[in-house]
Every structure is written in C-alpha cells, then in structure tokens.
C-alpha cells in the first residue's frame, strides 16, 4: 500500500523580481516526513517556502496539500521566517507573539479565551521560554527570539511546518531545543520542511533531503542524495572534494555567526 502524499509540488515555477527563482520543481513529501532543504545561497530555498505559504505567486505548476489545491485549507501550514524578516522593535511581549499563532482559530472580532491562554503557556513551556513570557520580543537574544517564533508555530497546531534557516546564527541551546521539537513533532505526524546550510545536520536528523539549485538537483533519503556529484552540482565552486572522499562545502563567509 502506498502512503498518501501529503504535500505534492508539481512542476512549479516561481519568479522573483522578474527572474525565475525556481524552475520546474516537482517532488512529493509523504505524510509526517521531515525534509531538509539544502542548497547554496540564492538556490531558491526561501522562495520555495514563500511559494508554499502563498507569499509568492506560483507562475506555473501546482501545489497540492492533502491532495487539494493550495488555498483549500486555512489552518494547516505554519511558517517560521528567517529572523531578519521581522520588525523586532515592535511593542509586543513574547506571550503576545505566541498568541498571534492562535488568531486564525479565533477568527474576526473574537478575544483570546482561557483555552487559548493555556495553549500559549504550554507552547512557551515546551520551548523552554515560559519565564520570558512577559518580556519584550526585542529584548531577547537571537536564539530566544527564534524559540518564541517556534512556540508561535506550535500554537498554530499546523499539519505542515516550514522553517527557514532555524539553525543559522543561533546558540547551541536553541539548536538543541529545535531538534528536540523536531523529534517530538515526528511522533505527532507533523510534516516538516527545514532549510539549512548544515549538511551534517541534514544527513543525521532528517528522513529526506531536497538538494535545490533553482531546480531539484536530487531528492530522497540522505545517503542517496548527498553524493559528491550532486553536491558539486548544487554548490558549484564552493565544494572541495578531499582525497579520502570527504566533501567540504565552504559557506563560512555567507552566514553571520551570532550567539
């Protein structure tokens, strides 16, 4: 018996500022799978995610969720953006930010109920930031901010969770908390896609790897996808193949380290 594919991308092309950022991308993510999206900067990782949540229009092709076209579901995709995309000086507390994850459930004109407050408290607890609930979002460290956004995504109770570079520029504690969260969501059958530069992480913690370079270079289980040839194709000159067969991808200069 074949498993129902929960997320199907069929020949999707997305333009960004007039250029085709993604071309003819097709792949299927089975129900509950965890996928690492790997590729160089500008390979279209963020573009893919933005198209999946409807932030960028799909020029051609189809995105199906649970077998239905995009837009048929209201509540099932949550997206954790890169930290640069948010206005951090806004006067909101951590609790306020996480509560925003409940807004869709609440609907127009409704105020949060005790049930929503409990859900928010649980999500904060789960990400280990319950003690920061009343703090301003702008006063947190990068890692804490990220955990607040993960808590918000949890509060949305999504079927599909997309995270853009959650391992870039955060402290070890946040990385650990993120990985723990992934393990836990696995048991809840939440389908997950994460973009990352970290090949080790992709190989070790994910069911599937999507190697992206404006189109799909390879897609499948990590051992099949992360080959010397495929990596060279995806990363171009940034790949260094050592004599013993080890592959080094040099992207040190593109990511800002921050603790």
């Amino acid at each position, binding site marked *: 018996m074949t498993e129902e594919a929960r997320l199907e991308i069929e020949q999707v092309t997305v333009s960004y500022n007039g250029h085709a950022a993604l071309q003819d991308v097709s792949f299927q993510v089975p129900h509950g799978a965890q996928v690492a999206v790997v590729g160089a900067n500008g390979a279209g990782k963020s573009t893919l995610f933005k198209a999946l949540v409807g932030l960028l229009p799909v020029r051609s092709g189809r995105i199906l969720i649970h077998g239905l076209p995009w837009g048929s579901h209201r509540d099932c995709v*949550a*997206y954790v*953006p890169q930290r640069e*995309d948010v*206005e951090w000086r806004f006067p909101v507390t951590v609790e*306020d930010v996480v509560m*925003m994850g409940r*807004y*869709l459930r609440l609907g127009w004109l409704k105020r949060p109920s005790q049930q929503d407050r409990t859900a928010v408290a649980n999500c904060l607890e789960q990400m280990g930031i319950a003690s920061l609930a009343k703090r301003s979002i702008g006063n947190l460290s990068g890692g804490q901010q990220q955990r607040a956004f993960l808590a918000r995504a949890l509060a949305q109770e999504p079927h599909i969770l997309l995270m853009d570079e959650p391992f870039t520029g955060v402290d070890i504690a946040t990385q650990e908390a993120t990985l723990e969260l992934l393990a836990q969501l696995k048991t809840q059958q939440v389908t997950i896609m994460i973009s990352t530069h970290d090949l080790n992480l992709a190989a070790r913690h994910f069911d599937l790897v999507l190697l992206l370079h404006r189109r799909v270079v390879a897609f499948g289980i990590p051992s099949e996808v992360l080959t010397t040839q495929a990596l060279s194709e995806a990363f171009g000159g940034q790949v260094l193949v050592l004599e013993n067969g080890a592959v080094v991808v040099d992207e040190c200069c593109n990511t800002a380290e921050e603790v």
Partner: protein
Amino acid sequence: MFQWLIDPLFYPFMQRSLLVSLMVGILCAVIGCYVVLRGMAFMGDALAHAILPGVAIAYLLHGNLLLGGLIAAVIVALGIGFFSRQGELKEDTAIGILFAAALALGIALISTIRTYATDLTHILFGNILGVSQGDLWLTAGLGGGVLVTIFLCYKELLVISFDPVLAATLRLPVELLRNLLLILLALTVVISLKTVGVGLVAAMLVTPGATAYLITRRLPAMMAVAAAIGAFSGLAGMYLSFYANIASGAAIVLTASSIFLLVFFLAPQRGALWQFIRRGKYAR
C-alpha cells in the same frame, strides 16, 4: 484657586473647542500608534495636505468641507498605493509627488477665492474657535467610529503591522486591512482639520505615539498612554491658547512636543539622561 481653569468654560465657544480638541487629541494619538510603528509619518503628512483640493472644491461649491476633504484623502491614499505598486517608484517618492501636486492644486483653487488669505490660514492651521455644535457631533460620531474599528480589528491590524508574513500565512486580507488603515487615517486627518489644521496634524499623529513608545512595552499600553498625552495636549493647548493668546493648533502641538522632550530625556531605562548616567557608571 482653580478659577483660571473654570473661567474659560463660561464661553460656549471655549466649551466646544475644549471638547473637540480633547476628542481629536485622543483619536490622533491612538491611530498615531500605528503611524509610528508602521513608519507612516510621511504618509500622514501627505494625506493631510492632500485634503486641501477636496476642501477647496467643496468650499467653492458650498458643499460639506469634511466630505470634500475625505474624498480627496481617499483618492490620494489609493493613488499612492497604485503608483508604488507598479514597482517603478518607491512609496516615499510616490507620496512626495502626489502630496505636492495635491497641495498645489488646493492652493490654486483657493487662490481663486477673494478672501484667499484668511480661508487658507484656517485650513492650514485650524480654526478651532469656529467649531459649531454640528461639527462637535460630527467629530464625536466619526472619531468614535474610527476608534471602534481600531478596537474591533485590533488583532488583525497588530499582525499586519508586526509580521506581514504571518498575516499572509494566516490568510488575512492584508491589502484590504492596509487600505482600511489608510482610510481610518484619512478620516482622522479630516476630523482634525478644524482643530490643528493641515499643517500640524502630522505632529498630533506622531508625537503622542512616539512619546508613549518610549515608556511602554505593549501596544494596548502604548495606545492608552498616547491617548492620555493626546488628551492632555488638547486641553492644555487650548488653555495656553486662551491665556497666552496664541494660535490653538500651534499651542496644542507645542504642548505635545514638550511632553515628548521631557520623556525623551527623563524616561526611566530608555531616556537619554538615564543612559548618560549608566554610561558614566561603566566608565568609572
């Protein structure tokens, strides 16, 4: 002892002006929080100037000035959106062009009227002493409507301002909400016309909100503090205007600006003086 507070209340025109400046102070301050947080100060200023041709046409046709101003403001707000959405022009460039054009058109129209100078002064700097009973009701009705709308759409306006990406993934009608905010802003500007005038309304939108931002950490608190500052500025400004015999709009704005300066330097934690002392401690 408080005779000086009560004295002006014996004049009916002062009763009306105090009430209307109180309402405008609160209204501008509350919507001004969004203006400050979303970086729409220039937009607010542009909308204020854009109502000039609408007011002028209404005046020439002996129609309702507020209605004329409102129509012009909505046209310009949507026009700015149209020009900047084409992608060729940045929003502030589109605002700069349209706002100057509207101002010029307004002045051109008003200059055809014989009592040009007085009329223009009233529109530019307000004419609060000319507030009628009808104006009072109109201000209360429209202002109340704007405040209720902001209250009812609190969640949605918060999300589109803080995190437009989340707003889109939550499938909120982002474009519609943005236009709603512009229309509320246009209404506010038009309502404020008689109190502070076209030239100074931007200050009433920005100053109380910016002051409140310095001393609060959540949006509801920021709105409440801004409303208090706006209300106080409205009343204190009117008294200042009454006793010092200066233009009321200017007096109101100067009061709000003085509060801003005080808070900017003296606010706990974030104030300039506080930061200076703290830096001194570390230096030692």
